């Protein structure tokens, strides 16, 4: 069959909302784009455990400790679902992990910010997971089957993450003056980085965009960001807190909230590795990987030995 024909058949499937499965023919660029996005997404889940892991032993009660532990465990699971989806595109798990550790692969920049107080666990659940969910809900309809299925599973589990985060802040917002101040401080520090999670402004660069045509993504960064602002600007009222943006106000004509400009210098600095915790996060990942080496090797050796025994018997 002609290459052109294959591409036409592929695009027809996409247009008819038929999912693409691993063994179907797909353009190289589609495979590459999906591989990059899914592996970045997987890395984000894995690195995303680190800012919270710090607080498991410092949670204010046994209940909060159990909840946080469950959330972090979910994130490990979500990373695994996504790595498995990426592997269906022909890249090995080891290669992906190597790419993360060498700095070649990216993960969401949000995890390069420090978690200074307990209120940060609330702000992360509410704002960071909230922003992630907007994206993930959209991705349940992405055109690549394994990615879409991983997203359905993740979305089912993720909603508790956001709710527990809001609840942490709700409790603090009704507490002592110091607790209220801690709540507001966490919101102040996480608001802008959360908005940056949606990525650069639409139209930042020139290049043809296939992600939309291929239905890998269905909404642009700015669309999702606006949706998020509209949602959070209402929810923050229930906390009796404010968002740190003087330009934030309801625009009756647009039926959306207007909001201020993101500090794009900061955005690119963090993306390029100069954020407050980039080095720390990668170092923690590599340390965990290295320190786990003997466990992986022991498991392989044990499996080989058992196999030998079985064959001998």
């Amino acid at each position, binding site marked *: 069959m002609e290459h052109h024909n294959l591409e036409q058949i592929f695009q027809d499937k996409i247009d008819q909302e038929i999912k693409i*499965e691993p*063994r*179907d*023919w797909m353009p190289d660029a589609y495979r590459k*784009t999906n591989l*990059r*996005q899914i592996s*970045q997404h997987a890395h*984000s889940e894995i690195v995303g455990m680190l800012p919270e892991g710090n607080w498991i032993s410092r949670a204010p009660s046994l209940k909060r400790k159990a909840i946080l532990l*469950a959330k972090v*465990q979910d994130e490990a*699971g979500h990373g695994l*679902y996504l790595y*498995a989806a990426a*592997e269906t595109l022909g890249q*090995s*798990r*080891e*290669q992906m992990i*190597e*790419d993360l550790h*060498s*700095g*070649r692969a*990216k993960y*969401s920049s949000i995890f390069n910010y420090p978690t200074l107080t307990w209120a940060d666990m609330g702000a992360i659940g509410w704002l960071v997971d909230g922003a992630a969910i907007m*994206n993930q809900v959209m991705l349940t309809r992405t055109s690549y089957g394994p990615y879409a*299925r*991983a997203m359905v*599973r993740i979305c089912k*589990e993720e909603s508790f993450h956001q709710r527990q985060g809001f609840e942490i802040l709700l409790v603090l917002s009704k507490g002592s003056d110091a607790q209220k101040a801690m709540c507001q401080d966490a919101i102040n520090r996480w608001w802008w980085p959360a908005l940056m*999670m*949606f*990525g*650069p402004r*639409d*139209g*930042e*660069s*020139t*290049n*043809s*965009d296939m*992600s939309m045509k291929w239905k*890998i*993504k269905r909404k*642009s*960064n700015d669309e999702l960001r606006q949706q998020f602002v509209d949602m959070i600007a209402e929810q923050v009222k229930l906390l009796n807190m404010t968002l740190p943006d003087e330009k934030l106000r309801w625009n009756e004509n647009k039926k959306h909230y207007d909001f201020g400009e993101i500090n794009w210098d900061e955005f*690119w600095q963090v*993306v*390029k*590795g100069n954020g407050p915790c980039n080095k720390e996060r990668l170092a923690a990942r590599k340390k965990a990987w290295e320190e786990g080496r003997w466990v*992986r*090797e022991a*498991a*392989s050796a*044990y*499996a080989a030995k*058992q*196999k030998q025994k079985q064959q001998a018997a």
Partner: protein
Amino acid sequence: MQLIRKFYYGDIPEDASGAAKAGPVQPASDWPLWEVFIRSKQGLEHKHVGSLHAADATMAIENARDVYTRRSEGISIWVVESHHIKTSAPEAAAELYEPAQDKIYRHPTFYDLPDEIKHM
């Protein structure tokens, strides 16, 4: 034609990220891939839920328990090494499945019967 490029959430292009270049690694030490099937409750079939890496079957089942049944999604787990699964080729779809398409008389709705008929 140059179109406006939109970046999407979680998608930082390599050229703009200042990423270091790295060579490929040998996947030699990769644990094998296992497909996981879960029975959600007694009386239902095992259903494919996903895959994972593990050194052996015992570990695959333990990992599957942690990854796929954290919210009581299952009461029984099957694992099978992925390379044991044989699949039909997508290119063969026409010859495999088209013969069934024109045999609508295999469906009960094909038969036009009077409304008065009971228990059928």
